[in-house]
Each structure stands twice: as structure tokens, then as C-alpha cells.
């Protein structure tokens, strides 16, 4: 009995390895995704760590050299369309004008309100952030000047600051990296779903389309063994895809400047082993899910469209785990539970064993349920002959 499962698995794997489409599907994902992620992380880290310089038009800047100096220390400088930066690239000058009044210096000297005018299109969404930033800085400058005036008159500036707001940013380096870690582990878990998908369709809906399913069922092999052999073959493919993804990630993530975030994502050997261990039940579930759906479909193409829809479910679970939506519920569910355990491991925290165990067991139960369902469906004439 076991030997004929082995025979079928061997044949499925030889068959799949010669199918360019199945192999490519796995390879593209395994090689492409870590590279794409790597590029995306580099961009993201760049944006998170250094706010871009804001270039606006400052008119009459001679009247207020101190203000201009202050703004430029905050990264806000004057620029016109011909300006270039140190590298010689053209500057991106925002359409915001700051007009300093002619009597600015005089008013300032007298200790009165000096006027400056901020001219910008407030309805322009793209400018909103820059306008806020400029306003905030102008206010801070104004408050600072006010305090200095009070001190000059011998008054403690605190009298005009009844409330002092202290903002403490609790974001630690690793919580900032939470989303990044989530996305990184999500792409790895998803590898399990993508790598075996083509083989799953080929060996079910494809097998029926090529009329070899009926022939296979005519041989003295139990339906259960046929189903098990198919599930194992797809699982093997999925696991190979996962392993490749992990290796590619290990190599490519080394190039991401993690230190700028204050933490590093290193794909250690321990992590690879843990991921493979945790990935196995997920791969079994992915395989049985994909085969089950493909057997239900009438043709190869139909199976492809159904699967794209069905794969949104694990994707959603994984996404929700990445973005920390309802973490208390998700840690018990399949896919998201395992993913949270993986994130905990990368962050160097304790792995929530109970949750991991429960979500893995649920994953396996789903896989077994789908396999049994498939066994039953292969006894139905409708499924076998695609009636």
C-alpha cells in the first residue's frame, strides 16, 4: 500500500519537474519575491529614517535671516525651479510660497507682530503634509521668539505656557519594524501556497482534462492512496518553493540597511529550520485545499480562477497578522497563528507555544478534512468525468 503511494509520488514529481509551467511558477516566486521585498524595504527604510528636504519659495528672505536660518535647520529651504542639489539633480520645489513682509525686520525689532504670509493651495492633497510641516515649524519659531521676548522683559515664559505637553514616542525599534517583519514572513508563508499551485491544478483538473484520471482510477489503487500521493507531491513542491524562498531571502535581506531602523532581520539557520517545521502543516493544508478546489473545477482554466479567489483567504489571515489587526483572535487561527509565532521568533521574544500548537493542529485538521472530502469526491462520477 505504502509502496504504491511512493510510486505515485515519484511519478508525479518526475512529471511535474518536466512541466515548465509548474517549475517556473515556483521559481519565479521563490526568486522574485525576496528580491522585490528587499527593494521595497530599502525604499521604506529610506523614507522612515530621513525626512526629505522641503523646498519652497521664500520671498523677501533678506528681511528675516534668522527665520530662514531656523527653517533651513529644519530642512526647509528656498529653492527655485532651476536649483539643483549637491548631486546636480533638479530639486523638487513645492508650490508653496512664504512671503515675508517688507516691515518684518522693523516690527520684530519693535517687539510687535511681524507678518509673514503662507500662500499655497490647501485643497491640494499632495501639499497638505508639507504645509503642515511648514506651519508647525513657523509656530515653534514664533513660540521661541515669544519666550525670548518675555525673558528680555524679566517674565518667566512658563506663564504663557499653562500646559506643557510632553510627547514620548514609545515606538521602539522593533515595534517600528513590526509591519516590515510581518510582510517579510507573509511572503515566506505565501511561498507555500504559490509554489505548489500549478502542480496542484495540473495533477487534478489537468489530469482529468488529459483523460488520465479515469485510467488511474481503473487501476487497483485505492482512491485514498491516489489522493494522499497527490497531496504529498504538491506538498513536496510547496516545501521546495519555501526552502528556495528562504535561501533567497537569507541572501537578499543581507543587503537591506536594517541598522538604520535599529534592528536587523537576519534569516538565521535556526529561523529557516523553524520556518520549514511550521511551514509543513501549512503546506499540507495548502496542497489539499488547492487539489480539492481544482477537482471541483471543470477545467484547468476554471481551477485557476477559483484558486485565485480561494487563496485570498490565507492571504487575508496573513495580512491581518502582519498589520496587527485583532492579534488576540488571530494568534489562535491557522496561518496567522503560525505567522505570529515566527514574528515573535525574529523579534527574539518567546514563541507562544500553546497558540502555535493549536493553530498548527487546526491547520492539520483542515488538511485532513479536505483530503477526506477529496477522497469522497473522487468516488463521484460527476467529479471523475467532469459531468
Amino acid at each position, binding site marked *: 500500500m505504502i509502496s504504491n503511494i511512493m510510486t505515485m509520488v515519484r*511519478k508525479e514529481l518526475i512529471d511535474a519537474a*518536466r512541466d515548465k509551467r509548474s517549475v517556473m511558477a515556483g521559481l519565479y516566486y521563490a526568486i522574485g519575491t525576496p528580491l522585490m521585498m528587499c527593494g521595497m524595504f530599502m525604499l521604506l527604510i529610506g523614507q522612515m529614517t530621513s525626512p526629505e528636504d522641503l523646498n519652497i519659495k521664500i520671498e523677501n528672505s533678506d528681511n528675516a535671516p534668522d527665520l530662514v536660518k531656523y527653517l533651513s535647520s529644519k530642512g526647509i529651504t528656498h529653492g527655485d525651479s532651476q536649483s539643483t542639489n549637491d548631486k546636480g539633480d533638479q530639486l523638487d520645489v513645492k508650490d508653496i510660497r512664504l512671503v515675508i513682509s517688507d516691515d518684518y525686520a522693523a516690527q520684530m525689532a519693535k517687539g510687535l507682530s511681524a507678518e509673514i504670509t503662507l500662500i499655497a493651495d490647501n485643497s491640494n492633497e499632495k501639499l497638505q503634509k508639507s504645509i503642515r510641516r511648514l506651519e508647525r515649524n513657523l509656530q515653534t519659531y514664533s513660540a521661541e521668539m515669544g519666550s525670548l521676548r518675555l525673558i528680555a522683559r524679566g517674565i518667566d515664559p512658563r506663564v504663557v505656557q499653562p500646559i506643557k505637553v510632553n510627547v514620548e514616542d514609545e515606538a521602539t525599534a522593533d515595534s517600528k519594524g513590526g509591519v516590515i517583519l510581518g510582510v517579510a514572513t507573509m511572503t515566506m508563508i505565501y511561498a507555500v501556497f504559490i509554489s505548489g499551485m500549478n502542480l496542484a491544478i495540473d495533477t487534478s483538473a489537468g489530469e482529468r482534462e488529459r483523460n488520465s484520471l479515469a485510467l488511474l482510477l481503473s487501476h*487497483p*489503487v485505492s482512491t485514498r492512496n491516489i489522493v494522499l500521493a497527490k497531496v504529498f507531491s504538491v506538498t513536496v513542491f510547496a516545501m521546495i518553493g519555501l526552502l528556495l524562498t528562504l535561501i533567497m531571502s537569507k541572501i537578499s535581506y543581507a543587503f537591506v540597511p536594517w541598522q538604520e531602523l535599529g534592528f536587523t532581520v537576519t534569516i538565521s539557520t535556526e529561523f529557516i529550520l523553524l520556518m520549514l517545521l511550521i511551514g509543513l502543516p501549512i503546506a499540507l493544508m495548502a496542497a489539499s485545499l488547492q487539489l480539492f478546489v481544482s477537482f471541483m473545477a471543470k477545467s484547468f482554466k476554471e481551477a485557476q480562477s477559483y484558486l485565485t479567489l480561494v487563496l485570498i483567504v490565507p492571504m487575508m489571515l496573513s495580512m491581518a497578522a502582519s498589520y496587527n489587526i485583532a492579534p488576540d483572535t488571530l494568534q489562535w487561527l491557522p496561518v496567522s497563528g503560525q505567522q505570529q509565532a515566527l514574528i515573535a521568533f525574529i523579534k527574539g521574544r518567546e514563541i507562544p507555544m500553546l497558540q502555535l500548537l493549536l493553530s498548527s493542529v487546526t491547520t492539520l485538521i483542515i488538511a485532513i478534512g479536505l483530503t477526506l472530502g477529496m477522497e469522497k469526491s473522487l468516488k463521484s462520477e460527476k467529479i471523475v468525468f467532469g459531468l
Partner: protein
Amino acid sequence: MIKVCDLSKKIGDVQALNNLSFEAKDGQITGLLGPNGAGKTTCLRTVFGLLQADKGHAEIDGIDVAKSPIEAKQKLGLFPDPFGLYERLTPREYVSYFAELNGLSRQEAKAATQKVLTQLHMDDIADRRCKGFSQGQRMKTALAQAIVHQPTNIILDEPTRGLDVMSTRVLRDLLKELKNQGHCVLFSSHVMQEVAALCDQVIVMAEGKVVAVGSPDELCQQTGKDSLEDAFIQLIGTDEGIAA
């Protein structure tokens, strides 16, 4: 020996098999002759346990297919319609795969495959992938698969469709050889010459029922016609769906 008793099967609204009973004996070639849509393929699929009969049962060497499918199938070889080749495998891999599924060990399967490939003169294509094979090459591959494990009973569904004279001869000689070795050969067909030339027993089927049973000569005598074709038309009462 293949025995079918009182088989009835409805597919959708069509009564595909209607109390069908017949017997195919060992050491004989039995032809299942009928017009298109007579229920030949449905009948053969039921014998293989792919379809479940609403009523009646099929036996292979005395084993009920519905009750012990695996034991029954071990005594069967199937040449299906359509062939169901794995295009990415070579005939050697394909044939040996099915030999292993029929309980042969890897070594035995390899040896049996080599034997059957030589028997069918397939050594030149044995290690080429099936993709792009001609109809004759496909037929031989499917045939090798059906007989590699030396089953006592061999079922062929429309075996000569699309074959040239040479391939048909190979097939005919093989069927005769199998018969002489004492195998039970059952094949479905709607081609008269083939049936007339090969069969010891002809079962004429129409609308899911057996219309007549006998050797080609007996059928001619029974209907008072000179050729099997005329006898056949007389028996089923129409000339619809017949290939001469």
C-alpha cells in the same frame, strides 16, 4: 472471465444500460458491437468500477467489482478511450508506472516493461516522451500499459479507432496471441470487419440492451444475411451510427 448481470444505469435522463447481461469467457475474444450511443463505454466503465450501476453487478473472475474493487481490478487490464497518456513521460516510464501500481516490484516492473515494449516493437520510441506521438505510437503505448502486468482479462474500448493498416495488424496479432495464451479479451467496437475477423463471440448492443449473442456466423445464419453488417442492421433495426 468477465460476467455482467442485469446491469442498469441511468446517466441524466438517459437509460444508458438497461438490464444488460452477458459473459466473456477466457480464451476467447468477445466483441461488444453496437452503434454510437448504445452504452458500450458506459458498460465497460461499470465493469471497471468507475461508474456505479443502479442495479445489477459485474464480476471479474467471480469477484464483484462493486464489493472488492481492488481485487477485481488486479485481474484487469484496460485500454481506454481516450488513451490518457502522460505526455511528459516516456513509454518506458509510463508502462512501468502502471505495472508498479498493479503490484509489481520496481525490478519486476522494469523487466515486464522491457518485455512488452519489445513485443510491441516499441524499442525505438521507448525513451522518447509521449508528447508528439502519432496515433499508432499512442495506441501501442496504451496497449503496452494494458497488458504489462499480464492480467487474465483485458478490456479494450474502441481499440482500432484512427489506426492505419499496419497498426491495426499489430493490434490484431496481439489480441489473437492473448487469446491463445488463454486470456479473456473483451473489446467494444462499431467496425464490422474488425469484429468479423477477430471475434469468437459477438454481443450486439443497442439502447443499453443485448440484442443478440453469437459467433459472427451464427448471427448471419440467425438473420439469414450474408454479411455481419447486414445481420447487424437487421438486428438493431436501423443503420444509424454504423461505420462500415
